[in-house]
């Protein structure tokens, strides 16, 4: 076991290595202000994040993906953060849960500072204990990327091109 502070700094370091960003925020209100400051657009919000924020635009239930494709800022919530890898575990059973993390340009993922675990093994232990969560669970580690053209690393392909972990303190 490592201390909570060490865990958060490890998390931040690993996330940076994966080209992700980090913001330490006190509350959901602060998170909203942070997201709103990023663009003129109203942030789109996943159903899970909406449960906490109670504002922002939800994807359209009938056609969730099309309704928010390429919107500038999206907010969702992670079940866990993983210090070892800088990953965020998203539990997104239905397409409507996934729309925001799939298709917005700058994705903000809220994670409680106490929800950061030491390593990936802890993450998978958690998953093994939550059979329903594994219906569609993704460890997201930084923004989407490719090196398929001449091995040149390019950030932002078909998923988000910026990813910020919003650690709620």
């Amino acid at each position, binding site marked *: 076991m490592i201390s909570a502070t060490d865990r958060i700094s490890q998390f931040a370091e690993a996330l940076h290595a994966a080209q992700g960003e980090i913001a330490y925020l006190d509350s959901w209100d602060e998170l909203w202000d942070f997201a709103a400051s990023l663009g003129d657009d109203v942030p789109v919000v996943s159903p899970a994040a909406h449960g906490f924020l109670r504002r922002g635009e939800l994807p359209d239930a009938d056609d969730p993906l099309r309704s928010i494709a390429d919107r500038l800022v999206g907010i969702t919530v992670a079940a866990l953060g993983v210090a070892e890898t800088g990953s965020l575990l998203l539990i997104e059973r239905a397409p409507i849960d996934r729309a925001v993390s799939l298709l917005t340009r700058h994705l903000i993922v809220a994670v409680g500072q106490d929800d950061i675990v030491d390593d990936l093994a802890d993450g998978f232990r958690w998953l093994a204990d939550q059979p329903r969560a594994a219906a569609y669970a993704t460890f997201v580690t930084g923004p989407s990327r490719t090196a398929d053209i001449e091995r040149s690393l*390019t950030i932002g392909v*078909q998923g988000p091109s910026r990813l910020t972990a919003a650690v709620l303190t």
Partner: protein
Amino acid sequence: MIADFKERYERAVSDPDLRPRLLAFQRSWRQSRDAQVARLEQRTERSFDDLRRDFAAVKDSTIERLDDYIDEFRANAEAAGATVVELTTAEEAVEYIAGVCTARGIDLVVKSKSMVSEEIELNDELAERGITAIETDLGEWLLQLAEQRPSHLVMPAIHQKRQYVADILGKELGREFDPDNIPAMVASAREGLRRHYLAAGAGLTGANALVAETGSIMVVTNEGNMRLATSLPDVHFVTAGIEKLIPSWADAERQLQLLPRSATAQTLSTYTTCITGAQPGKEMHIILLDNGRREMRGDDMIGAALRCIRCGACANVCPPYQVVGGHTFGHIYTGAIGLVNTTFHHSIEDAAGPQGLCVSCGACETVCPVAIPLPRQILNVRRRATESGHAPRWERWLLRAWSMPQLFRAAMKLGAVASTAARAVGLVHRDHIRLPMSRRLSWRSVPAIPAQTGSDLIGDRRPQPTLASTPAAGTTVDLFAQCLANRLMPDTVDASARLIEAGGANVNLPPNQHCCGLPAFDAGDWDTARTMARSSIEVLGRTDHEIVTPATSCVISMRDHWPQLFRDEPDTLSRANAVADRIHDLAAWLDGPGRLPDGCLERRVSGSWTAHRFCQSSNRNDPGARIDLLVERLTGETSLPLEEPEVCCGFGGLTSIAAPEVGQGILERKLDCVAASGCETLLTNNPGCALHLRAGAVARGASHDTQHYADYLAARLPDNPPS
């Protein structure tokens, strides 16, 4: 249709950009991967070897009880609403997918990367049935637009140049692309693929693992396309080999410690997606494919190849892969693993072509995250290819001739006479004959054959006085001169004898020595190899002395190949083992039973030499592999650093004859590193490599001298040792 091997080879060696691009790729991968592995070792406080052995054991035990795990997986996945089918052949898999599509009226499938779908050539097959499959991984999409196949397991379009990519994207999207603006080309995937996601009736993915305890699939990706392909369409197909089963999520985590680090040198890929069962209102069809895997499982030489997690690392360290790329070094599966599994997923004909490209350097096994004995498996497949008539005829004749000591000696004697004549008329330069050579061969010169053999020299001289008393002092040691060294490097044979004698032992040269069988074994011609090995067992079996040789490769041959050759001949096997138990590599001898004391040899100039360590023994960490440390210890001199010390020199036995461009390409990589070291002398251990390195250096006019370390050390023996 895949072009035949010859055509693929010609195309690869005439592409001037391929080699430098793959070289840069291999070097940068190596650096980042090594750093990742070092961090992993530090974090887990376990060695890479321990970690990979643990996970290999998980894979082995799962594959052993495969049917139980398949049942468990099926029950759990079906309880979660998926349909699981186990299919035997590629055709069945294609028919199943096409059948579901037809029944649902689906004519467009978006695909995330899946090697199994490549294996069954799904896109072409579906097209014939009126169903369009669109690749959505950027690299795979670029290949599809260019009507090409992946040339690497994880970097499928590594062979494409940016100019070429700009061209094909321009054609597809109807506007111009600047080849130097890679981000813009990458961004075009979003625009080019979006409409397909929206229109597709089905999405298809592979699976990096199938988790039995929950019936889940785990898929590792970077671009985000896989999540789109499984979120928009209503039907999700999963194509996976049955070997992808693992028992639990804990094992999935073990796999992830090794996979992204070995594949793309990432700690973790961007998306690790775990899916259990069909999503609400959707269908999930999981196709578990056999297609030769059960046959592999039943094959005791090949079974371990089923551990493969398709990371591509074996290609990333492969010297011939760097020269020719994956379209040539492999079939649909590329790299070392492709040389093995193609036989089972496709055919021995498809596997036969590239067999001769492998130089048996053993680099692949050192990085394989599941410790597959790839070099051994490749030699085994090569044997099958040779025995089913897929080896070039000249190779068989050459080896037959080699296996006959009289013929070999007569040919060499003739060569020696010709060399003396050439020397007389001034055709010999730096001990190599200047001949008009074809373009394909001009990178190497031909060594002049000395008039005297190693055995001649040993017979005619006074023994070296004892320099230090070693554990072997007073004993008699048999010297195995090796066929090549005896004829082409007689001084090395003499030098070896003197170094042994300096430790107080007597040297005996058993008469009628010839060849251990290595060249034939390497070429897959086991019958000829057995003939050669039998004669060496006979010649070396007459005494019970310890045996020492300056030929590192022959030690490996005796210890490793002989047991394979005589598996079914218990009598020969026990005699072979008795000889192999007594054989020592000279360098190991000088550190072991014949250990000469530190600094006992004359110290001349420090920092003027570097060492190329024979790749095979170096990659296996065999005793004696670190000749650089030995020379430093005995002389007190220091070695110059050499980049990529473990990379092969390109000799590779018959490879440098059968595929000269491969021998040349690897040799140039090595000689560039040697030149960069700034050395005056290059030391090496294996005679074949010494000859290859020297011939290449002379041909390119390099200023450094190439020596077997025995020659270097023997030249530093004092004339009058202290009494």
